C-alpha cells in the first residue's frame, strides 16, 4: 500500500525513561527511516547507530554588535531588551550573548544605526548513515542556554526527506520539547512504572493534549507490580501500545551500545509490532480527519 510517511516524536517527562531506546529501535525496524536526535544537550542515539560518512555543519544565531563611533549611549537598546542581554556601563556598550534571544529588536530600535548583527556559533548538526538509516544529531555547545535553533535546523534538514522519521526528544515538557514535536504526526510517550514516572507522564500528556497530537503510551521497565503509569493511562483512556519488561538482557545490550532489535529477534518483533500499531493509528487518524 502506498502510504504517506510518518513523523513520530518520542517523549518522556524525564531522562532515562527510554526515549532513545524506543526511537533507536523503532527506526531500526523501519526500512530507510530517519532518526533525529533532538536531545541536543546530550545526544546519545549516535552511540548505538555509530553512523558513517558524517557531515557536520555549524548552527549559528544572530547577535548584535556595536559600532562605538556611532553609539551615543542613549540606551534605547538596553531598555528594549526584555531578556536583559545588554548593558551600558560607563560609556561601554556590553552584550551578554548567551542571554540574547536573537530577536533583532535592539538593531531595529537603535536611532543611530550603531548596531548590526553578526553570527555566533552555538553548536552543530551531524548527519550520517547506519545501514539503511539516516542518523541526524544536534549538538549544543557546552554553556549555551538554548538548543532550539539546532532543533529547527535538524527539522528543516529533514523537511524534504520522504521517509518515516523518528524524533528522539529532549526530556521534559519545556519549549525545546514543543519545538521538537510541533511537526510530528504522532507522539509516543514513554513511562516508567513508578509514581515519579506517572507524574512525569502526566506532564508530557498535558503538553501533547495542548498540541492536540494523536498519541499512545509505551510502558517501559515493567515488573510484576502495580504500575502507576498504567493506571493513569486507564483513567485517562490513553492507549497503551506496548509493555516492555524490566529485562536484564536489554540492560546488557544497551550498556554495550548495541541496538536491541538488531541483536534479539524477540524484541525485533516487539518493535515491528509496535511500529505497525503506530502506523495504523496515524493512517486511521488521517482517514478520520479527511472525513470531518
Amino acid at each position, binding site marked *: 500500500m502506498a502510504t504517506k510517511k510518518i513523523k513520530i516524536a518520542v517523549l518522556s517527562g524525564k531522562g532515562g525513561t527510554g526515549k532513545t531506546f524506543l526511537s533507536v529501535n523503532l527506526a531500526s525496524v523501519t526500512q530507510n527511516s530517519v532518526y533525529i536526535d533532538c536531545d541536543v544537550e546530550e545526544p546519545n542515539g549516535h552511540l548505538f547507530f555509530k553512523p558513517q560518512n558524517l557531515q557536520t555543519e555549524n548552527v549559528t544565531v544572530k547577535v548584535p554588535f556595536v559600532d562605538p563611533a556611532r553609539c551615543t549611549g542613549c540606551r534605547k537598546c*538596553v531598555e528594549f*531588551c*526584555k*531578556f*536583559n*542581554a*545588554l*548593558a*551600558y*556601563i*560607563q560609556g*561601554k556598550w*556590553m552584550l*551578554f550573548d548567551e*542571554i540574547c*534571544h536573537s530577536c533583532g529588536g535592539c538593531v531595529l530600535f537603535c536611532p543611530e544605526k550603531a548596531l548590526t548583527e553578526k553570527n555566533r556559533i552555538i553548536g552543530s548538526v551531524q548527519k550520517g548513515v547506519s545501514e539503511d538509516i539516516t542518523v541526524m544529531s544536534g549538538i549544543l555547545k557546552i*554553556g549555551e*542556554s*538554548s538548543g*532550539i535553533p539546532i532543533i529547527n535546523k535538524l527539522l528543516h534538514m529533514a523537511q524534504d526527506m520522504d521517509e518515516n522519521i523518528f524524533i528522539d526528544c529532549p526530556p521534559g515538557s*519545556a*519549549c*525545546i520539547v514543543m519545538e521538537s514535536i510541533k511537526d510530528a504526526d504522532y507522539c509516543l510517550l514513554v513511562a516508567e512504572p513508578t509514581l515519579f514516572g506517572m507524574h512525569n507522564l502526566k506532564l508530557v500528556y498535558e503538553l501533547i493534549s495542548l498540541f492536540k497530537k494523536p498519541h499512545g503510551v509505551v510502558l517501559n521497565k515493567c515488573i510484576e507490580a502495580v504500575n502507576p503509569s498504567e493506571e493513569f493511562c486507564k483513567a485517562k483512556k490513553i492507549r497503551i501500545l506496548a509493555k516492555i519488561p524490566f529485562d536484564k538482557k536489554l540492560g546488557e545490550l544497551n550498556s554495550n551500545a548495541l541496538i536491541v532489535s538488531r541483536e534479539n529477534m524477540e524484541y525485533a518483533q516487539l518493535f515491528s509490532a509496535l511500529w505497525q500499531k503506530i502506523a495504523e493509528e496515524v493512517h486511521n487518524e488521517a482517514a478520520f480527519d479527511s472525513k470531518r
Partner: protein
Amino acid sequence: MVYDIKYNQGGYVMKIAIPVEEKSSSTKICISFGRTPYFLVFDDAKKEYNFLENTAAESRGGAGVKAAQFIVDNKVDVLLTPRCGENAAEIFNTAKVKLYKTINDSVEDNLKAFSEGKLELLQEVHPGFHHGN
C-alpha cells in the same frame, strides 16, 4: 542605623549597597543579588540610607545584568553580597565597583566588619542560576 564607614582599603567610599529581603531596618541580607527585592544603599557623604526597589527582581532572564546596571547607575562604589553571577561581575569589573563577600545575613554585622576592614573581596562568581528559555 548610623554607621561611620571609614574606608581604608584603597580610597574613600561614597556609597555602599547590600541586597536585602525587606524594606525595614531589621531586614536580613538576601542570598540572591540579581533577584533581591531591595537594595539597602548607604550614602556615607550624606550620612543617610535608602531602600531602592530592585527593578530587575521580576525579570524573566538576565536579572543579574539588569540589577548590576541599576547598581552602577546609582553610583554605588561597593557592594556587600553573599554571591554574584558572572555577568554581573563583568559589569562591576568594568565599572570598578568593588564586591565584598558577606559573612552572615545581618546588615549590622557586615557593615561593622566592612568598616573595620574585615570583609574579604568576593573571589568566586557563579555561572548563574539561569531558568528555562
